[in-house]
Every structure is written in structure tokens, then in C-alpha cells.
């Protein structure tokens, strides 16, 4: 993976975010409280002993994100760079604990290609998207979570709804594939949000929760 690839993907993430900007502002009107996240993201570091996946491991991801990463942070509440994880404090998911090589050099090297121990290092990315009503989140889940992406090898995606929040969790071995999957998901999510806005549903109050 080269820096060109990084930049392009970083930019794509921002674009999705920009497209979303209006949409997110509208849709993100969730009630206050601990779930009031805006478009937060948590990037867990590669699984390691104790699954701290802290900044040390994220350092590898920093390398890989390179020039893209600051851009990735720029969009209004879009993808944080890998360093944001400690700030998020939301929908935290334990990274799978996987034995890890002493220096996972990140995709710039070929750590991903090297089998270390019982499993390869994996990257987990969690995205939470608050909608105004549970029904909207559920609609988005059904629109976005069909088996369309059979051809993406090596990335697993789980889409669930928690109250009025759409929770998407990616688990992948190859950060490149992960990044592409996340970006294309954002593009489709943006489409769903715009679609819902254009055809503003009027849900009766008793169906809102």
C-alpha cells in the first residue's frame, strides 16, 4: 500500500462526511444522555495481549494512515484518525485478543501477510450513527445490511440497532480492504439518509421508540 492510496481513501472519507454534513445535523438529533454521540467512531487497535490496543499499537496504523489521517479527522464528526480512539469512550468493543508479533509493522510492511501465532492481527472498527427514531435506524439497517458484498474477502461486518442508534462493526485482517469497505458503506449510508430526508416520514408518536 502506498501513500497515494492512503490519501485517496482519506479524502473519500472526508467527502462522505461532507455529503453527510447536512444529513447528519438533521438526523443526529438524538435525545441527550450517554448515547448522544453524534457520528462517533472508535478505532480499536490491533488485537494484542490484554487487548489494550493502545496508542502504541495504533502507531502502526498511524504509519499506514499517513497523510490521510488528519484529513480523516476533518469532516464534521466523521471518521476519527486512529489516534481518536482514546477520546471516544463510546460503544467500546473489546478487540479480539490475538497473539501478536513483537513488531507488527503495519501494512506498509507485510505483517498482514505473515501468519503469526494462532491467528493474524485483526483490526476492529465500530461506527455508531444516531437516528431520530428507532424505526429510521431499523430501516437503515435493513436497507444497508443485505448480502451485497459477498465479494469482499477478509472483512466481516455486523450491523445492529441499539435503540435509535445504528451500530456497525467491521472486523478485518487487511486494513486496506477494511478502509475500502468503510468508505463504501459511508457512501451508501449517505444515500439512505438523503433518501429518508427527501421522503420525510411522519411517524406517529407511539411508534417512535
Amino acid at each position, binding site marked *: 500500500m502506498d501513500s497515494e492510496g492512503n490519501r485517496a481513501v482519506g479524502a473519500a472519507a472526508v467527502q462522505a462526511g461532507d455529503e453527510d454534513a447536512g444529513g447528519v445535523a438533521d438526523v443526529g438529533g438524538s435525545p441527550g444522555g450517554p448515547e448522544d454521540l453524534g457520528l462517533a467512531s472508535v478505532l480499536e487497535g490491533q488485537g494484542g495481549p490484554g487487548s489494550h490496543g493502545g496508542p502504541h499499537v495504533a502507531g502502526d496504523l498511524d504509519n499506514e494512515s499517513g497523510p490521510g489521517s488528519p484529513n480523516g479527522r476533518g469532516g464534521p464528526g466523521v471518521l476519527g484518525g486512529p489516534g481518536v480512539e482514546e477520546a471516544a469512550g463510546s460503544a467500546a468493543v473489546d478487540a479480539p485478543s490475538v497473539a501478536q508479533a513483537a513488531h507488527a509493522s503495519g501494512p506498509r510492511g507485510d505483517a498482514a501477510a505473515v501468519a503469526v501465532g494462532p491467528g493474524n492481527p485483526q483490526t476492529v472498527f465500530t461506527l455508531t450513527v444516531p437516528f431520530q427514531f428507532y424505526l429510521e435506524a431499523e430501516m437503515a439497517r435493513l436497507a444497508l445490511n443485505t448480502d451485497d458484498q459477498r465479494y469482499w474477502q477478509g472483512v466481516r461486518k455486523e450491523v445492529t440497532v441499539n435503540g435509535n442508534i445504528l451500530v456497525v462493526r467491521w472486523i478485518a485482517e487487511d486494513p486496506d480492504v477494511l478502509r475500502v469497505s468503510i468508505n463504501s458503506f459511508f457512501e*451508501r449510508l*449517505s444515500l439512505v439518509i438523503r433518501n429518508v430526508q427527501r421522503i420525510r416520514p411522519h411517524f406517529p408518536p407511539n411508534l417512535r421508540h
Partner: protein
Amino acid sequence: MPAVLGFEGSANKIGVGVVRDGKVLANPRRTYVTPPGTGFLPGDTARHHRAVILDLLQEALTEAGLTSQDIDCIAYTKGPGMGAPLVSVAVVARTVAQLWNKPLLGVNHCIGHIEMGRLITGATNPTVLYVSGGNTQVIAYSEHRYRIFGETIDIAVGNCLDRFARVLKISNDPSPGYNIEQMAKRGKKLVELPYTVKGMDVSFSGILSFIEDVAQRMLVTGECTPEDLCFSLQETVFAMLVEITERAMAHCGSQEALIVGGVGCNMRLQEMMETMCQERGARLFATDERFCIDNGAMIAQAGWEMFRAGHRTPLSDSGVTQRYRTDEVEVTWRD
């Protein structure tokens, strides 16, 4: 009297159509055109579709004079086609179906062409030549299936034409095939090209390699003009298509032929097919560019037939697929 809304976006055309009881009430469409010498890539095509699809939906409803209440079913292209564009369109179909609480129907793109061809032309039971940028098949209906009698064993005829257009940097606006057709009319010399019919099937990738090679050489030496090459390519590939269609017609004892798909707009192809049909005492049917070229109404029409026959696609099963054979669908709406 059900009214069906249809979404189509499997290649570079994105269309939304409304059909009710055999009448096309709306059929707006946009085409993603790339610069000369280039083709359309899945990601960019999907981006184009995502940008315009909601406007097209609005246009379709306005043109049809209908609201969401009047629509009974949402049809969309399940496949075959390019992955990213198919997915982007399906996402909107699913969202709209949920927002309006209407049943969904995943439609086979090829069957959409056939059903629209049957509706518009009134052909009763034709041998169908389906030719486009993505597909080349000879199809005949038998016992609840659209059976494929012959097809390309590699690339579609339209793909061969489009890729040749790239070599000559012919404009893609409105489509490369259209511009090749216009240039071919000015061709004077027939350049001999490989003629590759394989039984009931055809092959185009060898012809493409050959003509790409020839083009470099002959245009430099001035042995022929680009117009001559366009003319020669059309004459060769269309003759091949006529041959395999005739073979299928002879096999089925068919008195009707129907051309569908974007390449079906080509008047030279229609002319050659007409000659063959007349020699056999058969009738040729074809549609104009509104319905030959990918459009939303053809998906709506196939959806209308399927809806009335009781087909439904549950949300959980509403994925898309790049490979979807025409004969995979059980055609329960015909005897």
C-alpha cells in the same frame, strides 16, 4: 390495476419508471458518459447514480402524476450487472419500499428487456436477440423459462464495439455504439475480420484483439479509414448475430424475432435481421431507443408481471448479484 415503480442502474444508465396496466406513465433516465478513450468504472458509475437517483424518483412520480399511495410495488434490478451501481440502486429501492410500506420485487435485467419488448411491440412468442454492452444472448420462451439458445462465450457484442471505440477515441456521447454506427455509414471498404460463430454461440474477444491490432497498422499506412473499420466491424459482428438468431429460429420453428438491448437501436443490425426474417417469412420486432436502452420502465413492467403472478422479494432476500442467468427465473406469468 397495480402501478409498479421500477429502478434500473446496472450499467451506466440510471432510470426510474412507472408502469400501470401496460401503460408506461413515466420513464426518466440519465446516462453516465465518460471522456473519449475511456470506459465507465463501477465506483464512479455508482457515484453518478447515487447523485441523481432521488431526483429521478421525484421526476418519475411527477411525470406519472402519482404519489406514493398510488404505487403498489417497488421493483429493482437484482442483476446481472456491475456490483457497485447495482447495490446503490438496491439500497434506494429497499429504503423507499420501507418508507412507503410497499412490497419489493427483485427483477432480472434481461427479463426486463424481454418483457418491455413484448409489451411495446405486441410480439406473441418471438425468438429474442438480446444484445447490449453487457449481454449477448439468443432467447426463446419454453415451459416457464426464458431458455438461452445461444450466447457469447466471452464478451458481449456491445462491449466489443465500445472497447473498439476507445481505441479510436470515438466519443461516448450519447453512446460509443451510436457514434460507430454513424461513422460506419461513411465506410467504403470492407476489411476482412475473423468471423467467429461457434455452433449456437459467438465469440467477440478475438475479433476485438484483431481489429485493435489492425487499427494501429492500417490507419498509419492509410490502407483504410476509421470509417472503414467501423463499417467492417459492424458488418462482421452483426452477420454473426443474424446467423445464430436464424439458427435458433429454425430450431424452434419461430415466425417472430424480437431485438432488445442497447445494440438493438442500431439500424444496420435491424436491417440485416429484417432481410433474414423476410427470407424466412418471419416478422421482425424492435423498439426505439427509449426502451432498447436500459430504462426503469422495463424493470417496472417485468415487476408488474411478476407482482400479478404473486412473486415477492422479502427484504432479507433483496440482495443483488452480478451473475444472474436469464433462465434462473421461473416465468409463472406466461403459459
